[in-house]
């Protein structure tokens, strides 16, 4: 290998990227756009579920219950209703996702029987939201009920009823607020890098074929390996810049806690960059048109990484055959590495499993890329 030729190719490629609007847009605009789109667009958190309240009793206790729903932060009381029909209408019209119905006998039943029924109605067309909202509602009500009981007992000079109660001390590690953003956004970075990296290099060889410069290039003594390395080096730097940009946005804009070491982050990111750039390069060698290569790179990276990398859809929940396929989706390793570094502060040793996956991919792809390009026309 010849350093001079390597540098000449890398330098030429850098100049070309800087002068090619399409490459520049992919390198600089795409990460920004996707970061905004995926970072803001994808959230599994449910906040401010709109709730209509049909308070038949309208007493201090019933109003107290309603305000507990609102104070939890999960619900928002948007409307007060006065009939069952109005509930149906409000849900049909999308005014609210759910309704809280407090019966006229609420306070009376509480004090007489120590037990009261209230009703929550949710729009089941959005099963996910409803599922989570139901859980929240149960929590709010359970807490309210305990409070009411204790207050009632105090008012009547009795000891609060403490028999047979198990107090669950719930603690969630690594993402105490259970904020989905904290585990989705590191995944978004992986998806962006996978797509942008492959896009960038998918243009590199096909551009030479398309513009007719390839024949001249391969008539020089340059080796295929020098061509590959020389072409990949600038894109490797661009990919690292893109990664740094996305990761900084993740930490400082989206405020995802970063608990790991920067060195681990840089090393694993560089390894992932080798994989994605190699994939794009391989496509570029095979497909001689820039448009074709970049389209295929987009389809091949975007779809599997969004669906099968585990960045939104948990891999554990997938059926076994699909789960088997995810091992081929190299982004899954990086998604899990990023999450662990960000939220758990994992070290390289902790990451041995996914790291091994990435290393295998990087080795195989680097090998295939090194032998893919031949300096021949036939």
């Amino acid at each position, binding site marked *: 290998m010849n350093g001079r030729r390597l540098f*000449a190719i890398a330098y030429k490629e850098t*100049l070309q990227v800087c002068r090619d609007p399409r490459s520049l847009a992919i390198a600089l605009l795409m990460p920004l756009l996707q970061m905004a789109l995926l970072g803001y667009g994808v959230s599994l958190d449910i906040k401010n579920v709109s709730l209509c309240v049909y308070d038949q009793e309208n007493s201090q206790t019933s109003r107290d219950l309603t305000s507990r729903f609102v104070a939890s932060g999960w619900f928002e009381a948007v409307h007060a209703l006065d009939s069952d029909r109005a509930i149906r209408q409000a849900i049909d019209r999308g005014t609210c996702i759910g309704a809280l119905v407090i019966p006229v006998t609420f306070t009376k039943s509480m004090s007489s029987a120590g037990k009261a029924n209230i009703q929550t109605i949710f729009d089941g067309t959005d099963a996910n939201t409803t599922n989570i909202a139901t859980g929240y509602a149960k929590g709010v009500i359970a807490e309210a009920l305990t409070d009411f009981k204790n207050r009632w007992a105090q008012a009547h000079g009795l000891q609060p009823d403490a028999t047979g109660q198990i107090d669950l001390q719930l603690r969630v590690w690594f993402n105490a607020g259970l904020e989905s953003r904290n585990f989705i956004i590191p995944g978004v970075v992986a998806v962006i890098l996978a797509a942008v990296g492959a896009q960038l290099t998918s243009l590199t060889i096909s551009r030479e074929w398309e513009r007719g410069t390839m*024949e001249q290039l391969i*008539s*020089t*003594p340059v080796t295929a390996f020098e061509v590959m390395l020389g072409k990949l080096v600038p894109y490797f730097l661009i990919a690292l810049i893109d990664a740094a940009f996305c990761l900084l946005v993740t930490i400082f804009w989206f405020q995802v806690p970063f608990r790991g070491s920067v060195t681990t982050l840089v090393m694993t990111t560089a390894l992932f960059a080798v994989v994605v750039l190699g994939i794009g390069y391989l496509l570029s060698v095979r497909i001689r048109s820039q448009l074709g290569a970049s389209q295929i790179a987009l389809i091949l990276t975007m779809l599997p990484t969004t669906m099968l990398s585990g960045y939104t859809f948990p891999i554990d929940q997938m059926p076994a055959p699909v789960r088997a396929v995810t091992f081929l989706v190299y982004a899954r390793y990086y998604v899990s590495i990023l999450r662990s570094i960000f939220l758990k502060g994992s070290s390289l040793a902790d990451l041995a499993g996914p790291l091994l996956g990435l290393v295998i991919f990087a080795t195989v792809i680097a090998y295939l890329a090194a032998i893919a390009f031949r300096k*021949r026309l036939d």
Partner: protein
Amino acid sequence: MDNIDPTPSAPTVQMQGLTKRFGTFVAVDDLDLTITKGEIVGFIGPNGAGKSTTLRMLCGLLRPSAGSAFVAGYDVARRPEDVRAHIGYMSQKFSLYSDLTVRENLRFFGGMYHVPRREMASRMAQAIATAGLEGREDALVATLAGGWKQRLALGCAILHRPPVLFLDEPTSGVEPEARRHFWDMIHNLAGSGVTILVSTHYMDEAEYCNRIALINAGKLVALGSPGELRGRELGGELFEISCNMLGAGLAKLRQAPGVIDAAIFGDKLHVLLRDSAMAIGLPLLLSQGGIIAGSPNRISASLEDVFVQLVSRGHVEGAHP
């Protein structure tokens, strides 16, 4: 120059039975050709005759199906990288980087060919001067006119001072003035000992070559200096005759006894006669068909006459190495 063959008359390009097949199509058929140092050989033939394919095999870009070729002493099939280090090549299509400047292209190819660093500046300056691109060093190549582009491409191809140069229709689409300038560069290179094989479809350019290799349907049809080919290949005496009905005249002449061939050249007919004595009778012959003709003039054959003649009769003659 250390990489130029020390013996002046040693063959620098040698093809023996060189053949290239694409499936059942034979693009280059059993080609024998030897080119000595400092020689300019013109590769002439119709489109698809196999010129580009041959040049690509000589550059190691295509693998010969049969036969062998040696360039600067290296086997193109076995040691293509050694071949590439000793050649300059201009492919048929303009193939520098349009989005780079003149200087950036030169620097890139200088790097590719590993031109010694301390010589880069002077060689680049020289290439820019010969291409007439002084003052436009930082212009994007896309903005240059055809002639300048071709001269720059040649400049890039010879930055490393290769002993052998393969040029594939380097002047196609370039205006005549620029073509002459380009050929001056080629002659200067040959004068300094560079061996050049250049394909072209301009007949006037064929005249600038030391020898011409006429190739048709993958086969070498004729080989020799322009003078030799003009004198030797026709096998008859060439006359020019003007008449009022070219098509009818052509048909009439072709049937006439003693006429080897006839063809329309511009607004006149060229007639190849077995014997010059027959020329005097041609107007009379034509008038029998109602054609009014002038008196025939004896002309010396142009290379085009020779090529039309050779290609049309599908004449295959042994190569004269």
